[in-house]
């Protein structure tokens, strides 16, 4: 169960109403329109102390771009060389030693941008806010006036305190161990990591999140990512037990020896650059219909549905993996032009054709 389902569900995160396929339970107190549908535009509820109430089921996901590459917005020189080298190795191994998805260890900071596999539940009480993830782990954010511990025992999920800045819940976290990854690609962090999250519920159905990362031992300057998340109506969380019937890990070998030798020249990579749009599918959970393939230095990148760029790791001269969301093959036509891309996944294939126009 460890890896396959998690990747599958991450794919599902691109769809809007996947939760409803699992369980349909009306959410109590949900504002509804005249036709009975949930009304996400209704005002955000308030707790008994007058603060916005963040309680509820949320899809706390930053989208596959940042989930794959959290430093997408940083310049190359802002990443310490050791951190870049470790990231490249983990990426090249296709995440085979991922502590979360393979070893079933706690998600650590990745919970902040991925929120487990499906919806996560926020429970807000005046002194403490808990975020419950579907992998059965939780975080606690204390609002009782305590300070962050000065010399904490490093922990997987860190220590978190919060305060209200107007209608925004500001959460500061530190005291992480250095064994977790910041993203699915494998960007590392040190025990010096500090994170600041800002939660602002703008309506019943929407919350804006800003997450600032500050880890001077691995990254030369702090950076912030912003994303919006949606309330998940009329369903409930299901259990996800990473270790249940776990048979994947021994099959995860990363790239084969042959695949590791693959070097795709820049001029070949340049032939793949372009915007591809879905022409046909054989039944797939991958709902993105627009793929943008770009080149950054010697690194081929892919962005799905405008969701941020993920690096593509070469498996052959024409086949690549972004680790998340399938394997991609660029297919030449009779003239040798690469105008077709096939995304292979367990659930089915997506055939996308290049949009005509300048590259």
């Amino acid at each position, binding site marked *: 169960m460890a890896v396959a389902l998690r990747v599958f569900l991450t794919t599902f995160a691109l769809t809007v109403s996947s939760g409803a396929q699992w*369980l349909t339970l009306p959410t109590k107190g949900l504002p509804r329109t005249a036709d009975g549908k949930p009304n996400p535009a209704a005002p955000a509820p308030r707790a008994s102390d007058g603060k916005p109430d963040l309680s509820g089921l949320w899809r706390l996901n930053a989208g596959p771009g940042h989930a794959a590459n959290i430093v997408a917005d940083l310049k190359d020189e802002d990443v310490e060389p050791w951190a870049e080298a470790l990231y490249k190795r983990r990426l090249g191994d296709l995440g085979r030693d991922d502590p979360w998805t393979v070893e079933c260890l706690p998600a650590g900071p990745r919970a902040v941008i991925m929120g487990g596999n499906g919806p996560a539940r926020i429970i807000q009480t005046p002194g403490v806010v808990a975020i419950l993830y579907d992998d059965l782990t939780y975080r606690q954010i204390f609002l009782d006036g305590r300070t962050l511990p000065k010399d904490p025992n490093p922990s997987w999920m860190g220590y978190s305190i919060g305060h209200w800045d107007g209608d925004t819940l500001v959460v500061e976290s530190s005291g992480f161990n250095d064994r977790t990854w910041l993203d699915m690609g494998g960007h590392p962090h040190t025990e010096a990591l500090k994170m600041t999250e800002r939660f602002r519920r703008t309506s019943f159905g929407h919350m804006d999140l800003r997450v600032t990362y500050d880890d001077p031992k691995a990254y030369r300057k702090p950076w912030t990512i912003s994303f919006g998340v949606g309330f998940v109506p009329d369903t409930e969380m299901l259990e996800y037990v990473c270790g249940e019937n776990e048979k994947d890990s021994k099959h995860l070998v990363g790239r084969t020896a042959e695949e590791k030798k693959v070097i795709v020249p820049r001029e070949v990579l340049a032939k793949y650059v372009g915007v591809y749009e879905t022409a046909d599918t054989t039944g797939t959970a991958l709902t993105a219909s627009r793929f943008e393939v770009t080149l950054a230095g010697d690194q081929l990148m892919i962005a799905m549905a405008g969701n941020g760029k993920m690096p593509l790791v070469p498996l052959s001269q024409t086949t690549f993996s972004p680790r998340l969301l399938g394997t991609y093959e660029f297919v030449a036509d009779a003239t040798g032009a690469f105008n077709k891309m096939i995304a292979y996944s367990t659930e089915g294939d997506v055939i996308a054709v290049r949009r005509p126009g300048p590259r």
Partner: protein
Amino acid sequence: MKNTIKPLLFAFLGLFAAIAQPVFGQRSGGSTPTAKEAPAGEIPRLQNGKPNLNGVWNHPYVPDMAKSTKAGGMSQEGPGTLPFTPAALAAFEKYDPAVDGDYTGACLPFGYLRSFNAPYPIQIMQTPEYIAFLFEQNTWFHVVPMGKQHPAQPEPTWFGDSVGKWDGDTLVIDTIGFNGKTRLDTLGHQHSDALHVIQTLKRLDAQHLQMELTVDDPKTYTTPWKNTRVFALMKPGQGLLEYSCEENNRDLTQGHIHLPAK
């Protein structure tokens, strides 16, 4: 942090539960402001008038739900012997975790009742709509929605499907929908997927909470039976610690853990 031979050790850990407590004196705190405490004998309440169960609770370690024990302000009372069906009794007498394997050794969820029976503290988070139990044991949790009905066909799960309601000042939680893969306690008292747990929680005073469990499982026990226990509120500032079963768990990753066949 990971105690790789935990399942076998648990049987002995009960003896150490009292001794182990001072270790938890190191729990984060100190900088925490003193929580407002209700005077002894008075039950703190939420704005909606319901008893306020919020807090971090110390509770008896119950490796054997049949027995009764008392330690400090906490106690628990079992029925003495359990009303096993003949087949279930034979299976229980044959059960040897060292031979048969204990699923908790593979870091699989303890399940609902065994999470309450584990030795570590439990935090209750309460809003009018939900009660959440945060277990220190493996940093697991369970959520109880208030005033809802069970789904007609609940998904079988490790922790079951719970619904809660108030009967006066007593919280009543009804839980069904178990996958039948867990055991009730460390000793290995078993249950089936027909397990139905009725749980009542009553705040006795500012410092104490009583929990009564009724175990109803006609496939395993001839009649429903009860276990009652008293929780004690932990000191202000004492909180849950993080617990990762998988951390450095070489017994598991190197294949030394004997998993139950089914």
